[in-house]
């Protein structure tokens, strides 16, 4: 069976809808705050009252341009709005304002990294500006209820080329798009809450054949896991169908999480005729040189570039740089911490990286917060802990104690170590005294050690550490014991 699957090449394209973090809605002055109490951010315009007219939101346009630049798109200096006509209770005007012909951004690409470390370009066909519909709530016994807070929320739709050939590539593309949107600060990228939505177009063809197979579309994939699962399922379904002599029907499918399978939503015959035509209530979207210049200035370093730079400049493992740059604020925290180290070398950078990837990430995931929300964890504090440890002023054990203390209180590690007198003891005479008193009365064990029972060394070390309240420099204790027991 696996041979048969190898004979086919899946072809996948994704359509992503991203809800943008503008102040106001796309075509009216309502606050863009859809999670507030239902129908509290509505007005004649977004409710589609008779006679109301839309007005373009400049911030919406600027964010679309930013995404276009981040994905290497060409930006059209003049593009128009269109109406997409269909009836649905949550679509207040009976049409959606969108862009049809000539979208604002077109012909771009993004890079995804493959397992072997090579980089693959996925083409972006277009990015266009549009508005969201309201939200129908069907699961209430009494009636269908509609919340129009979401009606008119600003969206961009990002359409990829059919450049992906496996579910895992589609997954990676999706992850990287979300990462870019978050880096730009224009979308919070939450699939579960619907601020990011994904539809997938899938077909399969025999390897070596150029023509596309018949495609199906899977609608509303509301988690990253489901994107991958649904695409995988659909690829297998297509191949099995073709192998059993059947043909794929051009239909719209839906992922059913309860059965872990796709099911038909509507056939091509039932497909809507959206009757697109130019929106007569709005003028052209004009992108000036100034707007392009401003957007270019605002364009931050993108995730992949930042990952490569962190790994190269700080000498941290590429894999670790990947984890740091998954969240831009974490990567920023790393750089800020490194900047505050008293000695700037790769050894300490690696220590900072380890602290973030182990202790800090654990706290963040336990508390389900981001680094910016963790107010007691400061870059200065982490830099102090790393410096204290690297300067051999505290042991790794004490370092962890200090960390768990400052996480509670937000105190400065330096002050805390001083006030509690936790500084590591590296004075040779004092350590020699500790060693002497530890070896006192241990004649029998010393005999045994010298006779070859070398694992007794651990016993001696822990005894010295106990006497020093954990503050003795472990390297020096080790050296002195070795001298004494020779």
């Amino acid at each position, binding site marked *: 069976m696996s041979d048969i699957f190898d004979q086919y090449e899946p072809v996948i394209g994704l359509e992503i809808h991203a809800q943008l973090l503008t102040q106001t809605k796309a075509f009216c002055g309502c606050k863009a705050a859809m999670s507030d109490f239902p129908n509290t951010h509505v007005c004649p315009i977004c409710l589609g009252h008779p*006679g109301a007219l839309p007005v373009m939101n400049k911030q919406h346009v600027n964010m679309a341009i930013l995404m276009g630049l981040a994905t290497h798109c060409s930006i059209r200096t003049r593009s128009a709005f269109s109406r997409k006509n269909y009836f649905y209770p949550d679509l*207040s*005007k009976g049409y959606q304002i969108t862009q049809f012909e000539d979208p604002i951004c077109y012909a771009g690409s993004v890079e995804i990294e493959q397992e072997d470390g090579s980089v693959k370009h996925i083409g972006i066909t277009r990015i266009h500006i549009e508005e969201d519909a309201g939200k129908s709530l069907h699961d209430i016994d009494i009636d269908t209820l509609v919340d129009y807070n979401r009606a008119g929320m600003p969206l961009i739709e990002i359409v990829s080329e059919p450049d992906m050939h496996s579910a895992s590539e589609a997954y990676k593309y999706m992850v990287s798009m979300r990462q870019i949107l978050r880096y730009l600060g224009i979308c919070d990228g939450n699939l579960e809450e619907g601020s990011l939505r994904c539809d997938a177009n899938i077909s399969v063809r025999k390897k070596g054949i150029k023509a596309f197979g018949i495609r199906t579309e899977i609608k509303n994939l509301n988690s990253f896991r489901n994107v991958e699962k649904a695409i995988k399922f659909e690829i297998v379904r297509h191949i099995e169908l073709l192998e059993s002599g059947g043909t794929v029907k051009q239909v719209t499918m839906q992922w059913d999480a309860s059965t872990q399978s796709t099911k038909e939503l509507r056939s091509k015959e039932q497909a809507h005729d959206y009757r697109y035509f130019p929106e007569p*209530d709005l003028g052209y979207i004009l992108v000036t040189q100034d707007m392009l210049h401003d957007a270019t200035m605002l364009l931050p370093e993108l995730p992949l570039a930042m990952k490569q730079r962190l790994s190269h400049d700080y000498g941290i493992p590429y894999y670790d740089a990947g984890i740091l740059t998954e969240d831009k604020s974490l990567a920023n925290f790393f750089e800020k911490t490194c900047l505050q180290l008293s000695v700037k070398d790769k050894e300490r950078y690696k220590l900072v990286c380890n602290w973030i990837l182990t202790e800090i990430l654990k706290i963040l995931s336990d508390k389900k917060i981001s680094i910016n929300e963790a107010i007691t964890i400061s870059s200065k504090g982490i830099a102090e802990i790393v410096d204290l440890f690297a300067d051999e002023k505290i042991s790794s054990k004490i370092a962890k104690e200090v960390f768990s203390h400052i996480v509670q209180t937000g105190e400065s590690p330096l002050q805390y170590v001083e006030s509690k007198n936790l500084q590591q003891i590296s004075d040779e005479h004092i350590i020699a005294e500790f060693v002497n008193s530890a070896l006192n009365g241990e004649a029998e064990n010393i005999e045994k050690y010298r006779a070859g029972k070398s694992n007794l060394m651990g016993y001696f070390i822990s005894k010295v550490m106990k006497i020093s309240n954990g503050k003795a420099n472990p390297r020096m204790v080790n050296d002195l014991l070795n001298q004494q027991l020779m």
Partner: protein
Amino acid sequence: MTNSYSKDRENVISGITTFDTIVQQHIGNINANSSMNAFLLLNDNAIQSSKETDKRACSLSSIDGINIAIKDNISTKGIRTTCASKMLQDFIPVYDATVISRLKQKGAIILGKANMDEFAMGSSGETSYFGATDHPLFSGYVPGGSSSGSAAAVAAGFCHAALGSDTGGSVRQPAAFCGVYGFKPSYGRISRYGLIAFASSLDQIGIFARDIDTVSLVFDSISGEDEYDSTCSRLSPSDSFSNVDNSIDYHSLTIAILPENELLGLSQDVRKVYDTTIQSLKKAGCTFKELSIPASSAWIPTYYILATAEASSNLARYDGVRYGARVNNDISQDMTTASRSDGFGKEVQRRIMLGTYVLSSGYYEAYYKKAQKARRVIVNGYKSIFDQADLMLLPTTPTAPFKRGEKSSNPLEMYLSDYFTVSANIAGIPAISFPAGYNDQGLPIGLQLQATFNQDEKLLHLTKQIASLIV
């Protein structure tokens, strides 16, 4: 016949009368002629506002106290606005159209909401859900449409002025039928915010009055940029009343007229008035040039394709979900179908179906795309006309007013009666119908003057001069 606004205003200032009395007289007139069915609703606050106007009679703004009727497709906050449709028979808007807030701000008194063809779709006033409007002078005849009530109310002396909307002639045609001025400004000179859309790219709010000065006064008060309407012109409000150029030299005036073969379907009586007018203007020294607007055979199809396409989309919001008529109280596709079938009249449904058809996949290129191309041809044609002439003179309507019921069973014939008016909407240029004479029966006949885009002030000035030659 009641006075013009300027006369009434003079009388108020000199203490002969008050705005309170004027409003009461108008309302008395309306009530005494209620069978004309010009108004769908009278504003309860009109008398109260007239009393307030009287208090400031020593410092009146340019249109203070003017009694104005508003076509019932213009949104008035707290005042029922129906579009003369069952769909909106109980609809009370939550906001004022931009023109309404500007009128209110300058002290205009909104007398009431005027009858109209349902959703402005009709040329006779007969498609109103609340019954047809009767002709103000000849009962049994149509006053024209779709701004039937606005034209009838002005002609009957129920108010000083009225607002209408003109998508393909809906201000000029009823103005001609009722013997008053009906002005459609350039597209975008008056904000459409709050004008309930029929066809967004053609709709324009227009003004009715019995004299051109009142038209100018109202135009100056409501025109100008509006941040709520992206299609509104950036030009400042017009200054057509006080800034008049009276030094018109007829010898330097070139007027374009259509070649003989493009004067389609013109009746004898309209023809007579048209010829007489040209003769008087020639006598005064005007030069006439026969110039044709290209694609005259395509005007009506172009207009009806664009207008119905936009209408099919503009009227999609009436689905019974948020407001308006609702049949079958369970939110679903069935509810939408049932509500729309019940709430819209026959003519509205016909145009929605036409518009849906011309936009549907497979027909879009053949109809909508083609109509857009024809539109560009017409726009350019007008440009070249106004390179060679100051104005264009056209009949407003092919015929004098007809009898109620005469054409309502033949939609195609009704559509063809828009022949002379639609091209101005397609091109977006300003156009005005002025009373030019009467037929043997005494029915009013209007003629139309058009000017190039955004030369609304010039059009109003020249119309005043030309009309003074004729009457």
